[in-house]
Each structure stands twice: as structure tokens, then as C-alpha cells.
């Protein structure tokens, strides 16, 4: 467990910074990103613009801040959506067993069997592009993750003595699930939520990269990468900054997840 502490500290620090920057963007950015200064586009970093200007002459640092907000909101809501639907399904499957269990698990199989990105692209073709629809497209694939995890962990809790005692006391399956099983799952769910959160950041970047995520003037790291792609030979920093933002954020969230896992449940392995 000697490794756990630094992982948790570094991961927690990066994640906290990410959330702080995202929140900061609600009240302050260095410049307004609606200011187009085309004459000075692709300018390198300076004291006035720490990360330089983009292809429209917008302040890159401000765009990165707004991109953090977008990544945070999309991934967070997608996780909440996935957990909000997946956890109850998993609890239900574990509590009832039988055909309900089979139905939930087979349903999860079907969703897992779909190529996620292609389905997300189809969904945005139906719903139109936008941050909210990116949330739905990503959230749909979080549902079976939480359902499976909840069911698997809940099944083992159902065999525990304190649950048996509750059953003996005449409590119904729903009450037991909520009062005794769910609290026992919290640590596992928090760890998984952190990891799904980081997957969501990458997925959102991918969708925005192909133009299906947040729509301008909202900023997105994936959109910034797409804009920078043809400029790599001319202005490589344009692709470096948003790329680094994604890598650092995902890295931080993964480290946080690993650290939390080691702290909360040392028996779990790292193979999720």
C-alpha cells in the first residue's frame, strides 16, 4: 500500500485542478473567446496570451478553460446517467435473479456488442449534434457497465450474514437493496465512476473531433484538435495544448481511480 498514497495524491491534485479550472471558466476566462483577432492568428505563447492564439485569433488558454468545462459537464452527466440507470438495474437483477437477471444481463450484452463510436455517430445523426446528445451517446454505454458491476458485487453481498439477518427480519428485497446492499457497493461504484468519467473525457474528445460534440461557440478539446490537425506542420502548438489537456486530465482521473481503489478496497485488482 506504499504506492497508493502518491497515486491518490497526484491523481487527486490533477483532478481537483481540472474541476477547479472548469468551474473557474463559469465566472472568468482570460479573454472572451468571441473576440476574433484574425490578423494575429496562430501567434505563439506570449505574456499577454500564455498559450498563444488559435486559427481565428482567439486566446487558447481561454479555450482550454472552456474546454475543461465542456469535458467536465459531458462526462459527469454521462456518468450520472449511466449510474442512475445501471445501478438500479443491477440491484434489481441481483435481488430478483431468474428471468429478470437474465434479461438485464443479456440486454447489457446487446449494448456491449454494439460498436460504441458508430452507434454514437448514428445517435447524433438522429438527434443532431450537440453537447447534450454527446452526453446521451456516451451515457448509454455507461449503463451496462454499472449494471454488470452492481449486479456482480451485489450478488456477493446478498450472501453476507447481515443481509441474511435483514431478510430474516422480514425486510423486502427493495429495502434490503437500498439499505444494506447499496451502501456496501458505494466504494466500488465510486472507483468505477472515476474510471468511466475519464473514459467519458476521451469519448467526448473523439465525438467533438468528428464534429458531433459541443457546437461552437462552445469550446471543446476535441474540436480544438480537429481545428489544429491541418495546422500541425505550420503551428504544432495548436495541437499540442488541447492534446496535453486531454492526456493530463485523463491521466489524473485514472490515477485518482486507482488510488481510490487501493484505498477503499485493497482486494480489487486493476484489471477493469
Amino acid at each position, binding site marked *: 500500500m506504499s504506492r497508493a498514497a502518491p497515486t491518490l495524491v497526484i491523481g487527486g491534485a490533477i483532478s481537483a485542478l481540472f474541476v477547479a479550472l472548469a468551474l473557474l471558466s463559469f465566472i472568468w476566462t482570460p479573454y472572451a473567446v468571441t*473576440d476574433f483577432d484574425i490578423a494575429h492568428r496562430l501567434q505563439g505563447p506570449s505574456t499577454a496570451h500564455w498559450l498563444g492564439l488559435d486559427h*481565428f485569433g482567439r486566446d487558447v488558454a481561454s479555450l482550454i478553460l472552456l474546454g475543461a468545462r465542456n469535458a467536465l459537464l459531458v462526462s459527469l452527466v454521462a456518468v450520472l446517467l449511466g449510474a442512475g440507470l445501471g445501478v438500479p438495474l443491477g440491484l434489481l437483477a441481483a435481488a430478483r435473479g431468474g428471468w429478470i437477471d437474465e434479461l438485464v*444481463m443479456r440486454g447489457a*450484452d446487446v449494448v456491449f*456488442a*454494439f460498436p460504441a463510436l458508430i452507434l454514437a455517430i448514428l445517435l447524433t445523426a438522429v438527434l443532431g449534434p450537440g453537447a447534450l446528445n454527446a452526453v446521451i451517446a456516451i451515457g448509454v454505454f455507461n449503463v451496462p457497465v454499472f449494471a454488470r458491476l452492481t449486479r456482480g458485487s451485489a450478488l456477493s453481498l446478498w450472501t453476507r450474514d447481515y443481509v441474511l439477518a435483514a431478510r430474516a427480519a422480514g425486510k423486502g428485497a427493495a429495502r434490503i437493496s437500498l439499505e444494506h446492499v447499496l451502501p456496501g457497493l458505494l466504494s466500488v461504484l465510486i472507483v468505477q465512476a472515476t474510471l468511466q468519467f475519464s473514459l467519458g473525457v476521451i469519448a467526448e474528445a473523439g465525438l467533438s473531433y468528428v464534429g458531433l460534440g459541443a457546437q*461552437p461557440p462552445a469550446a471543446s478539446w476535441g474540436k480544438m484538435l480537429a481545428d489544429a*490537425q*491541418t495546422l500541425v506542420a505550420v503551428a504544432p502548438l495548436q495541437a499540442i495544448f488541447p492534446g496535453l489537456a486531454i*492526456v493530463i486530465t485523463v491521466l489524473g482521473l485514472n490515477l485518482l481511480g486507482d488510488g481510490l481503489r487501493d484505498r477503499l478496497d485493497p482486494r480489487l485488482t486493476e484489471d477493469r
Partner: protein
Amino acid sequence: MKLSSFFSGLLAACALLVAPLAVQAQTSLTVGLQLEPPNLDPTSGAAVATDDVVYGNIFEGLVQLDPQGAVKPLLATWWEVSPDGLSYTFHLRQGVRFQDGTAFDAAVAKFSLDRALAATSTNVQKQALGAIARIEAVDPRTLRLILNRPDGNLLNVMALGDTVMVSPKSAGKLATDPIGTGPFRFAGWRRGDSVTLDRFDGYWGKGAKLAQVRFRFIGDPAAAFAAIKTREVDAFPDYPAPENLAQLRADPKLKVIAAASEGEVILGVNNRTGPLANVRVRRAIQHALDRRAIIDGAMYGYGTPIGSHFPPQNAAYVDLTGLHPHDIAKAKALLTEAGYPNGLALTLKLPPPNYARRSGEIIAAQLAQVGIRVKIENVEWAQWLDQVFARHAFDLTVVSHAEPMDYDIYDRPDYYFGYSSPAFHALMGQLQAATDEGQRAAILGQIQRRIADDAVNGFLFQFPRLGVFDARLKDFWVNSPTRSIDLANASFDGAGGGGIASGRSGGGAIPGLVLAIAVVGGLAWLTARFGAVWLAGRAAIMAVTLLAASAVIFTIIQVVPGDPAAFMLGLNASPEAAANLRQQMGLEGPAAQRYAAWLLGMVRGDFGVSYTYQTPVAGLLAERIGVSLPLALLAMILSVVVGAPIGALAAARRGKAADTVVMGLTQVGVAIPNFWFAVLLVMAFSIGLGWFSAGGFPGWDAGLWPALKALTLPAIALAAPQAAILARVTRSALIDTLAEDYMRTARAKGLTASQALWRHGLPNALIPILTILGLQFPFLLAGGVIIENVFFLPGLGRLVLQAIGQRDLIVVQGVVMLLVFAVVATNFLVDVAYRLVDPRLSGRAAR
């Protein structure tokens, strides 16, 4: 054109430099195109990509337009128009043969035009040919058109790709097997990758100088840059990334040409209702626009500002850019006058090309300055056609109107921007009656003024045709008003050389047979090993999953907005042509019936026929698997070869420095988005070092090594995050097994640590590793969607992206089902592998 003279000078200088070396000039040419044609029949559907490839090369019409827009003879040597304008007599060229051997005469010409006008025709120009009452083959060399009203535009329509001459023998198969009278004949089409044309030796004219031409389809701007920079293509006549041109200009082996096109880029305004019906609001928008900033920001300075819907190179052009100058105060005043002192909110729908998306972002910022709050919505072309063009559900849009002389759209109140003006209609009437050139020019001037004064749309800039070419290439490109890439006279500098044999990809019956034997043998073995009951249970689960997935995907497809037929026929199609096409596509009828038909077909291996390519979907899937499957396997091998040993190393050195470094690196590896990594790889290893080609796929018939080489960079990009995950899993699995009692026992009986690890640790650690591999494989198969775009590989991912964009929904269904099947089959194989590795599992069903 100052630029072109500069470049011809540059070209001459280059020619002098290479002259001593050029013993034999190159006779095969590769042209890069942004869009792949959906099919190769120019007489049905509106895809400009079809005209790019076939018009002037494979097909020819009776007449053509010269660079100044004048009508010139082609298959008709001369023609007469009766004084009342109701009879056109064409005298046809002699000695013309189609590439299928059919002789061209008046009967064939009559057949071609009758076909375009037929009731079941899906020809886009059917309405434009509406004045034709009757077509007569007077004698084999004379064709006469009898009109029911004069039509000054008829000869222009006869110069379009839609009215080319076709051979009665082959007219039914033009989509996949185009036959015309042009200087090149169709040689092959590798879908998603390229179309190849060979010189037609029986051509009536001088004949092409090039022996072979290949059109390669590269939609991604970054991939286009890489392709021209690494000379994967010799020419990119419609280069999509103006931001790279400065850099490409600096390369002496390339020439860059920016020329005028017939395209006007406009801010389309819905004139029908709401605030935009008020001319003051529309004028306010004009004053809010800063054209120079839009051209600089979106096009990097390429493009000429326009003040009306008319191209500056036309003799009748009137410069109206000063009519509504950029003036924020004036714009605000106009808005206040119109009753919007606090501004207003509008939506702006933007189609995919960069010029539209970038202009749109700048326009939104400019309109914000006068108090107009713009909500941007990016749409695909299919959605644009449906929402903006067909249903008029928009406020603003940005689009390029590429058709020459298309001011008549302002005379159509049902057109998407919905302009309706009696004054304009009267002008159009005068224009049709006018025969004198000077008189016509004067009326055209009034037409331009009228729509500018009414501020119908925001007139932004003339679309520049940006081309990048190998400097040795000459006579390639004429600034012709007709949409085409005419290569009849193109050649490379230097003496003529020999031809190049064309490669064709071919499927094989033998691999199919081997596969069938393997499947049957595998099933027999599984039955023997695990029992028929288990196998039947697994098969039932697989079948149910596939069935559920098919229902889900079919349902989603039903609600995808956008009509495939409307998409194929484009902007000028008549409703009846669209209905004809829907019927042909099998899109009519109840959903349940179509679902059942699709399902039953798939059971027999029939996935339907692609709407756009018009070939069986099964064949398309087979072609694309030939790229995606090897790519996925290669990526998987790479991730195992790299990831597993690294993970084992970290496990063996647990807690030491090596472990920390490896684990840190894998964390970074997991966090890197693979599309970003792919771009970095191209920049470093293709453009920088030149070790690998920037993309494309030569096909397996080009040889194992070239094919593998083309897949190497994409495989690395795909494999990197997977290898990182695998390393982590291997490490933790090994650490877990190392802690087990049997490992201690193994050490106690005298094995060394590494012996114990290999003999007892690894087999037990295999289960989690297998699980991850099983999860990874289908992901790699489908997960290459973006990677395939970056490297323009003709794989499944690119097929499905393109199919979604073009609403080729039957292909989308097919690809998704194939990928779902891959997941299900992989799960099954992983399950089998579990049982082989861990006999304890044989007793119960593993999940």
C-alpha cells in the same frame, strides 16, 4: 492570372532542372479528390464527384463549354437554331465509337436524350430539359430537337454531365460499368480507395497522352496534405486546406494554383417569415458582415469578395461589394428601425465543409457585435438537404452555389431561401426574351443589383478553386464552367513512356472454402470436447443477441432523418425523380415487412444492395474486411508483443524503479487519444522522416510487404493505448498469481522464480489477459473509424461513416450487424479459450 504565369515560369524552371534526368516521362497520373462518387453514372444523381471522375474523360456530350462559358462543338460538329428558337438541329461527328464498340449516330443520341426525359428517369436536369417536346433522328448524322417554347439555356444544359451520350448496349449498368465516347475507358474501382481509368485507344480525337489515370478519394484535409506532400497523389485539383498552401507553395516540386470558380459562397437567409422577412433586418446583416475578415479567417485570404450572386470573372459582372459596407453602427440602426433594438436570436445551420464551418463561426461572432445572437448547428449534408433545402427549417446557413449561371434560383419562391419578387421575375422574363449579348449583359447587371438591394442573402465570396499539382504536370486543368476534371490533354513533362499495367483486386473462392472447412471442423471439435448441449446453449444465446441487435439497429435506422433518394439526387431533383429512386431502392412498404426481408436475406448471406454504390452490400463488406481485419489483427499482435512483456517485467520488478517507470508510462499510454497519436505519427514518420506512406492502401494484390507497410502506422496508433492496458492487466494478473499458494509450493520444490512464473504463473494469469484481448478485438475492428479517416484506409469504419453521411442506410445496417457478430463470435472464442486454459470452468457456464 498573375499566379498562373508565375507558376508557369516556375514550371519552366523546374522543367530545365529535371530535363536531363527525364529520359522517360511518367504516363500514369494519380489525382486526389475529396469525395468519392457514389456511382459512375452522370445521368442519374447529382453527385459532383461523379462528374469529376467521368465527365470529359469517359463520357462526352453533344457540346461543351469553353473556359469563358461559350458553347463549343464536341460530338456535334455544328448546329443551327431556327429563328423562332423552337428547333435545334445538331450535325453529329462521324467515326465516333463507344468504348463498348457501339457506333455513335443520331439514333444513339436520340436514345440518350429520350432516356433522360423518360417517365422513370432519375435525371436531375429533367426539368431543365422540359422545353423539349420531341426528338427526331433526321438521318444518322442529324439530330433535331423540337421545343414547345424558346429556351435560351438549352445549349448550356446540353453541356452538362447529365446530358452525355450513352450507348444503348450499356446504359443499364452505367453506375458500376460506365461506357462513353471519351478518351479514357473505365478500368476498375476499389471502393473507398480509388477509380482507375485507362487510355481508350479507339478514341475519335487525338487521344489521351496519359496511359492511366487513378482518382484517389481523400476527404480529410490533414490526410490530403500528407498525401500531396508525400506524393501519394500527383494532383489535388480541389484542395481542401487553404491553411497549408503557403507551405506547399514553398515546395519547388509542387505548384499551387488558386483560380476562380463558378461557386458563390453565401450566407443563405430564410426570407419567408419572422424577422428575416423584413428587408431592414437582412440589410442589417449585410452591414454586420466583414467579408475581408471572413475570407482571411476561413480561407486564409483566398477568395474574392462578392456583393451579389454572380461570379466576378463573368463579363456581365457588376461589383456591388460597396452597396452594404461593413458598418456596425448602421447595422444596429437598421435593427432598431426594424423593431429589434435589443437584437434577436437566429440559428445558423452549417454543412460539413471547412469553408462553411469556419465562415459560420466568424459570421456568428460578427453578428454578435450588432446584437444578433446566433446559435450554430453543424449538420451533415443529408440533414442539410432535409432540414434546410427541403423543409426550410432554418434561419441562416452557409453554402457554396457551384452551378454556373444559377441566378434563376432567385426566381423560384419555393427554393430554400424563399425569395419572391415580381420585379425580379419580370427581369428574368426580359432575359429569356433577350437575344443580343449587350442587352443580356445589361439585364444581368440589373438582376445582380436587384438581389443585392433586397439583401436576399449575405453575399460572401467567390469560392476559390485551390489546386496543388506536381510541377511537371501540364495541360491538366482548365478553369471551365462545367464541373469536370478533364484529363484528355494532361501529361507530364518529358518524352512519352510506356504504359503501366493496372492491378485489379479479386476475391477468391478458395479462401471461402478454407473458411467453411475450418468452421465445420471447429464445430465438430467443440461438440466432441464440450458436448452438444453446451454448444447449442451458446448458439442460442448468440442467436438471441444477434436478433435483438438487428431489431435495435433497424429501429434506429428507421428514425434517422434524411431521405437517401433526396440525398443522391441533390438540389435540382424533381419530386417524381426522387419517388422513382425510392421505389428502386426498396424504401417503400411497411417497416415490418422490410425488416423481415432484410433479416431473411442476411441468413442467406444477402445483405441487400447499396443505395449509392449500387452493388451488393455483402461484396462491399468483404472488400472492407480485407483491410479492417488485418489491421485489427496487426494491432492486436503489436499490443500483445509490446504490452505483455512490459507487464511481466513490471510484475517481476514489482515496487522497484522499473515498475514505477513502466506503470507511469502505461498510465500516459491509456490517456492518449488514439486519433491524436495517429496525427503525430503521420507528421513524424511520413511527412518528417518519409519512412512510411501517409496513408492509403495499395491492396493485397500489390504484394504482402507494401500492404503490411501501409497498415503499420495505423496499427501502431491503434495498438498504443491497447498495449498500455494490456501491460497493466498482465502485471496485476501476474502479481495476483505470484501471491497464490501454489507458487510458493513451486518455489519450495526448487524452481527458480522465473521458472515458477513461466510454468505456473503465466497459465493462470492468462484468464484476465484473454478477457481483455477478447474485449479489445471487436473494439479494434470497429474502433479504427477515426484512424481509418486519418490514414484514408478503405476499411469498415470509413465505409460506415461515409454511409451514414450519404444515408446509404442498408450499408450502415450491414456493417453494424457484421461488427456485432464479431463481438459475439469473439466472446464465444474467449469462452472456449477459458475452458481450455482452466478446465475447472467446464462444469458451469462462464459469463
